[in-house]
């Protein structure tokens, strides 16, 4: 076997590192503000979830399950959620939920507009598509590094890493949903003298809604799966329990927390799927 010739050596990681450092040096203030803002939202969300009596949430899950799927599903989800409480992991679950919630909200605030822009500008799509591909194939914990560099340890960098990881589906599916609106329908809208903005709000977004909902669902699931990874940089919650369980070989502890994550995932997935289905527009 021959080694690759050593004189043709080039490492690009170093440039990224330099770039990140440069960002830090020049935009420290910006990151501070960002940090503050996200942290505030995060703490408020967590405080709210913890303030909420446990049965309130169980009831909410029951109602949502009932409304968007069926009665049996509602009962099942309520039971599963109570199970988490039985494990004694309620508080940790709320912390996890707060991180997921914050990440999803930020992802949507970023992702939907980007998806819309992409669907309208072919050139932008050419630029963004490969970036999204890269974001999705990159091992998720790679995002932890810039997160730590920008925000140190704690919840905010966890959110930051989660957002980067969970962003692609909602962008992709928003773009796809808008592009798949039948051409004749969009033209009908324009033929009545609608502006692009009116066409977007009155025709394209409502038509794309089911697809966007699927994107939101996927983004949420990815955010949830990132929680365990993000716990490595100090996000407390269920992920940290799993991590701690693994590192100390406490199978029971890791298993309970892991199971709780699965339960959370199933409930969120099914309910958001149900909502997405409700928005399905019947085919012509």
């Amino acid at each position: 076997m021959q080694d690759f010739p050593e004189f043709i050596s080039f490492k690009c990681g170093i440039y990224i590192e330099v770039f990140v450092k440069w960002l830090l040096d020049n935009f420290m203030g910006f990151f501070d503000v960002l940090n503050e803002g996200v942290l505030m939202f995060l703490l408020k969300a967590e405080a709210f979830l913890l303030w909420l009596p446990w049965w309130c949430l169980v009831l909410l899950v029951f109602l949502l399950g009932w409304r968007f799927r069926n009665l049996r599903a509602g009962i099942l989800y309520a039971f599963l959620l109570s199970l988490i409480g039985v494990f004694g992991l309620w508080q940790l679950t709320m912390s996890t939920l707060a991180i997921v919630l914050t990440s999803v909200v930020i992802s949507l605030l970023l992702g939907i507009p980007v998806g819309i822009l992409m669907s309208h500008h072919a050139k932008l799509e050419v630029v963004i598509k490969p970036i999204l591909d890269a974001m999705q194939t990159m091992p998720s914990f790679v995002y932890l590094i810039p997160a730590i560099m920008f925000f140190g340890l704690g919840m905010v960098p966890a959110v930051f890493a989660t957002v980067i990881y969970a962003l692609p589906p909602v962008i992709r599916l928003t773009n796809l949903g808008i592009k798949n609106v039948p051409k004749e329908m969009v033209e009908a809208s324009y033929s009545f003298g609608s502006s692009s903005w009116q066409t977007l709000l009155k025709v394209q977004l409502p038509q794309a809604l089911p697809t966007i909902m699927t994107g939101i669902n996927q983004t949420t699931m990815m955010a949830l799966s990132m929680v365990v990874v993000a716990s490595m940089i100090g996000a407390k919650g269920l992920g940290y329990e799993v991590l701690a369980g693994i590192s100390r070989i406490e199978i029971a502890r890791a298993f309970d927390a892991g199971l709780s994550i699965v339960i959370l995932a199933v409930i969120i997935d099914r309910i958001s799927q149900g909502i997405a289905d409700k928005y399905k527009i019947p085919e012509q």
Partner: protein
Amino acid sequence: MTEFRKELPISIKYRNNECKKKDNLIEWVYRMTVKIKVENLTKIFGRNPKAVLKKLKSGESKEKIFRETGNTVGVNNVSFEVSEGEFFVIMGLSGSGKSTLIRCLNLLNIPSAGQIYVDGANIVQYNKKALGEFRQKKVAMVFQHFGLFTHRTIIGNVEYGPEIRGIPKEERREIAKKNLAAVGLEGWEDKYPNELSGGMRQRVGLARAFANDPDILLMDEPFSALDPLIRRDMQLEMLDIHAKLGKTIVFITHDVNEAFKLGDRVAVMKDGAIEQIGTPEEILTNPANEYIANFVQDVDKTKVLHAGNIMIKPGALISLKDGPKVAIKEMRNNGISSVFVVDNARKLQGIVTIDDAVKALKEQQKLQDILIKDYDTTTPDTYVQDLIQVASTTKYPIAVVDEQDKLLGIIVRVSVLSALT
């Protein structure tokens, strides 16, 4: 078909019988103001329209341009005018550029070259705001596959135009309801498009287009996706609506029969250019070239042509003053077995047959005595279709007369039958 026509509102009968009379039509077109005027319109799809325009000017063909540049010439140097209230039909085969052309008329396609005037204003130069206003007030479009908003209810669809114009909610509901009722869809307001049949969906499309009360209606193969029976109903309804509201309509079809049935004038397109424009009769009786002749050969001519189009000058005519002898001579000379008799003012008096004339000559009778009165007459603007019955039973040629009973021409049975093929 004939029965159906009888039940039509007066307006359609009026249209068919009065306006379609050729002289009247010409006068009518002349009297009307020009609504749409298209000048040297060209539309090129591709990266480099400027270069392609030059090539087109130098006379290169559409195929060659496509091979060399990859650009498609959708519409090639087209000019025409549409009068106010006219039903203007554009027909042509698939890919001939019909849609491209009609979509230029509301600037869904931006022309590569040429001008389009509507009410005298050049719409090609409109800015965004003016264009928006133009689309909201002057022109509406009906689509082949309806283009309904599937996420909105039926009434939500019809309301769309007024909504964009900023009309308050209550008022636009009213407008939408009225327009839905006009196309016979009361009670369907809260359904969704997927719950309706094809014909009903296109009615919604029509109601939606009418909701803004536009002057001009652009219809791109609106009935092509419908099955034949519903299609026929919609065509008749369209004629009815046109007669009632007097909108200017630009209508696209690839079906010759539909074009000739609906159009006051018809433009035939081929490869992005207009090959001929004229009334259905003009095109049918006088096709500009081989292509058009081929195109119109399977038209049901009986629905387009009138008695006036197929009548011939009588080979022989005799006057009341003439005796049986003259009658026999005329018939012999022309090889016919009967001849019409007119008075000094060419007023039709009757018909004599050769047998009767020979007998009269022997028995010293006068022409007056052998005059047969039970011949059939018709007016020049009767559709050939309505003569078929008569032609198949009558013994004599059919006399074409005007209101004063003056003989204009005769129709022999064979010309009716040949129009059938």
